[in-house]
Each structure stands twice: as structure tokens, then as C-alpha cells.
């Protein structure tokens, strides 16, 4: 059983999606470590190290995602998490923006997969299986 860390980054308290992601990934055979809302980059990284997770799924809904996610990849590498997959989804920027641009910015920041608003976790399952197996 593969382990994934999930949580909501920054000063963000949107809890609904997080609870559903927890339920759906668990139902689909993952060991889910849910650090919940209001989580810092360190919280994600520590949880991943402790549980030997294969992927970190960051949710950001409230708009500050771009600021909260800066240097996440670098922090992971510093902590020795070289091969960990980094996903981000929700409403990760402020306002209705062209998603292609947003994706580019987050790719540059080292994220492996970036999801636009409205992509449900059910739809991302395939990617996860592809990237880390079950």
C-alpha cells in the first residue's frame, strides 16, 4: 500500500475538499496521511519523511497558493525527498486566470501535476496510479 500525504497549505481553511480527498483515496487503496488545513510546507515535508510517502498532494483553495508554494520543491530536496511527486490542486491562484499560464508557473516551481479548479479528486486518480502505483 502506497502512502500519500494530503493537506491544505498556508492560512487556508477550506476543509470540505480535503475530507473528500481523504475518503476517496483511502477507498481506492492508498494509505492516506492527512495533515488537514492550515498546514505549512514543513508540516507536509515532515509527514512525508515520517511515513515514507511517495507523493504529496497539496490543496490550495483560497488564492494564496502561489505564495504559499514558493520553494516547496527546493525544501523537499533539502530534506532529502528527492523523488517525491508533488501535486497541487484546488483554486491555486487569485481569480479566474488562463490555466495554461498558471500551469507553467507551477511547473517551473517544480510541481509534477497541477490541476485547475473543478477537477475532482476522482478524476486525478488515474494520474496517481500512473505515477506511483497503488
Amino acid at each position: 500500500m502506497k502512502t500519500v500525504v494530503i493537506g491544505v497549505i498556508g492560512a487556508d481553511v477550506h476543509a470540505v475538499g480535503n475530507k473528500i480527498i481523504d475518503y476517496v483515496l483511502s477507498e481506492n487503496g492508498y494509505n492516506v496521511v492527512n495533515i488537514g488545513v492550515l498546514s505549512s510546507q514543513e508540516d507536509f515535508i515532515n509527514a512525508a519523511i515520517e511515513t515514507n510517502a511517495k507523493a504529496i498532494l497539496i490543496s490550495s483553495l483560497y488564492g494564496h497558493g502561489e505564495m504559499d508554494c514558493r520553494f516547496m520543491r527546493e525544501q523537499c530536496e533539502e530534506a532529502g525527498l528527492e523523488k517525491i511527486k508533488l501535486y497541487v490542486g484546488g483554486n491555486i491562484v487569485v481569480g479566474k486566470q488562463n490555466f495554461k499560464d498558471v500551469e507553467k508557473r507551477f511547473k517551473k516551481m517544480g510541481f509534477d501535476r497541477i490541476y485547475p479548479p473543478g477537477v475532482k479528486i476522482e478524476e486525478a486518480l488515474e494520474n496517481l496510479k500512473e505515477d506511483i502505483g497503488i
Partner: protein
Amino acid sequence: MVKNEKMSMEEFLEIREEVLLQWPTGNHPALNLEESIKRLKSVPPHKNFAMKLRKAKKEGVTLIQPRAGVARLNEHIELLQYLEKYGQADFLPSTIDSYTRHNRYENAEDGIKESEKQGRSLLNGFPAVNHGVDGCSKVYEAVNVPLQARHGTPDARLLSEIINASMWTSNEGGGISYNIPYSKTISLEDTIKYWQYVDRLVGYYYENGIELNREPYGPLTGTLVPPSISNTVAIIESILAAEQGVKNISVGYGQGGNIVQDVAALRALEEQTNYYLKLFGYEDVFITTVFHQWMGGFPSNEADAMGLISYASTVAGLGNATKMITKTTHESEGIPTKEANVQGLRASKMVVNLLKGQRMPDSKELQEEINQIKKEVDSLIRAIVKVGKGDIAQGVVNAFKEGLIDIPFAPSELNNGKILPARDIDGKIRILALGNIAFTDEIKEFHRAKLEERARIQKRELSIQMTIDDIYAISEGVLVGTTKD
């Protein structure tokens, strides 16, 4: 130990000194109370939230207010002016950014700077504390309708000081409603205290001849919240505010989706708030209701969103809410542009205008739903008073601890988090998993029966999947979710 007792002036002033030190903008001549009283007295009635609400209530109309806030002062002012002019907004907000909500004023400062640099707002709201009395007063001067701070701040003491001194005449929030849905670990004792302070400030102004409006935040997590739960919180926060001397309160409710249940919820909310305030000895508090357009996940298609926004407006009109908070066609995506905001406002205004004077007629179904909600609220408040040994503040703290009151999908660890709501076959919100909620057996039986009926008709099982389907449902254009498998 927090108690529902009026804060003494000494205690208030003592805390005040500390509060004003939390950030440099706390040091401003207008924050001298004599000075701020003078400033608030200069507010004309049409820019005073409390007065405009009294007038609207008398006329029986539904007024509208958007959500809006950006990082930079000038941009924020332009935004509000635009919403007033083109959106016909009756009230204006300043939605506060999330860093400020968590008292992270340094982060907010970074956000302002970064926003200046990039020429677009990187914050999800207006950082009022950082802009201080000078900035906030400029906002006040720039518009012709009353202003309110809308946020989600567990400790909003400094923010409240600044906005009131800046002649913003209403403030949203409360010790429960701005804690449980907006925080993870802050204790209820603390947040109730913080909000007693905020209310005490309003009470103090009232003693000095200035009526300000306060608005407990109604929709909580905005996600399938059963009306009796949000109404209970609104009533409790009204009592807590009234004790501190607040005299003008708007109680809020977020659209559930079934029109009869929503109208019933609004009516029960107003009636029971008045009833309980009197019961607890608060005689001359003026109550209005606020209806929030659908607060859960929105459909991504903009025309769908317009349909939902307008449908919500119909409910607000027929339910005779005095104020309605509007949404926009960008809701599912991100902070709306000012144009999208105006579209939502205008569609809303059109509908409430057409419904002026129109009400949902009384009927058996409506009356039954009102009675049901009232019964549930009575059951919850009774339990809270009991575990508080007569003190409602203490009661709330203990009730949450024991899960007697429980808010679905709340991020707070103080919340029991054991109830699961789901819709019955008519789309009315009921409770599937009851956790330890303080309902009588009769009420519990009612909820079970309603959901079993749905399970039977939809030929599916009673399970959490029902709840999940219902969470997605409205954004997918249906009210009652259907099973995926």
C-alpha cells in the same frame, strides 16, 4: 473561564492597550475613543449600516451586498466604487485577506508589496489592518453607502478597532462562527472572549449615541449545514453580543436549496432570535435577517451560475430577508473581476426588485418546516444552557466539547466532526449520521425516516456516499445527488 457577562470598562480598556500594540497601525490618533466617537457621529444615516437596515426592514425590501476585496488601497476603492455605481450595491463590504484573518500582518505586508510589484492583487482580500485608519477612512470617504468588514477572523480585535474608527458601521463575525469554520486549534474560550471585546466596543459606542450593526456569520462551512445548527449558532452569538450592549444585529443564513426549507429557516431564525433575546432579558435589540446565496461549491459554467444566483434571490425575496449577500459567475474559479461581480449584483437586484412585496404564502408545509427547525433549535439551546449550568458562553464551550453541537465539514479540532448531512428526497437538508448532537429521540427519528425515504426512492444505501454526492450535486446542476455506482 469565559462567561456571558458584560465586560467591565476597566477590563476592556486594559485589553485595549495591548490590542492596539499588535501592529503599528494601532497607534493612530483616531483610535483615541473620544476622537473615534466624534468621527462616527459624523456618519450620515445613509452611510450608517444600522440605520439603513432599519429603514429597509420597515419598507419590507431586500437589499444587496457583494463580497469584494483586493490588496492595494486604490484598486480596492475603485472596485467598491464600481460595484456601487454599476452593480447598484446597497451595502459595500471589504472582504479581508486570509493573512490578516490569521493576524499574520507581516505576510499581508509582503502580499501588498508583491501586489504593487506585479500590478495585480496577490491577496484574496483587503488587508485592512495594514492599511490602517488612514487607508480605511479613505475607503469610507470614497463611497456613498454603508461599509462592513467581512472576514473570518478568530481574533478580530485590532481589525475591529481600526474599521470602526474608520467609520465602517458594521462588522461580521462571532466567537463561534469565525472560529469553528475558520480555524483549526484556537480555543472557543479565546475566540468568545475576543468577540466579546469586539461587541463591547460596539456597545460602548452605543452608550455614546452611536448605533452600529453587528452580523454573526450565518453560513458556517457553507456546505449542507442543517438550518437548525446554523440558526442556533446565530442565536447564541446574538445573545453574547446583546450582553455586551449591541443593539442592532443581523442574523444570517446560507441558502440550502429547497425553497420551502429556506424560507422556513429565515422565518424561524428571525422569530427565534427575537424570542430568545427576550427570554434571556435583552429587550430592545433590533433584528434583521441576511440571506447568503448558495455558499457551497458552484457550477463552473457562468450561465448556470447566473441561474443559481437568481434562484437564490427569489428565495431571499419570498423569504423577506432584509439583506442578501451575492455571489458571482466566477465563484467556482476564483476571486471575481469587478465586471463579474456586477453581473451577479444586477441579476440579484432585478429579482429582488420584482419580488418587492411578494412573499411565500403561509402553508401547511411551510409551517411544518418552521416548527421542525424551531423544535431542533430549542433542543440544541436547551442542551447548551444545561451543560453551561445556565451560562450560555460556558455552555457553548462544553457543548462543542461533547459534540452536542457539531458543524459539518468544519476544520476545527474543537468540533466533534461526527455528523454527516444529506438531503431528503425533496432536497431539504437532514442529518444522516447524528454523532452526539443534542436532538431529542423524536427529532432523530424524523431525520432517519426522511433519509430512509430517499434511500428507498433512489434505491440506494444510507451511506457517506450520499453526502458526497450531495456536496457535488449543485455544482453539477442538480439538488439531490444520485449515486455514482
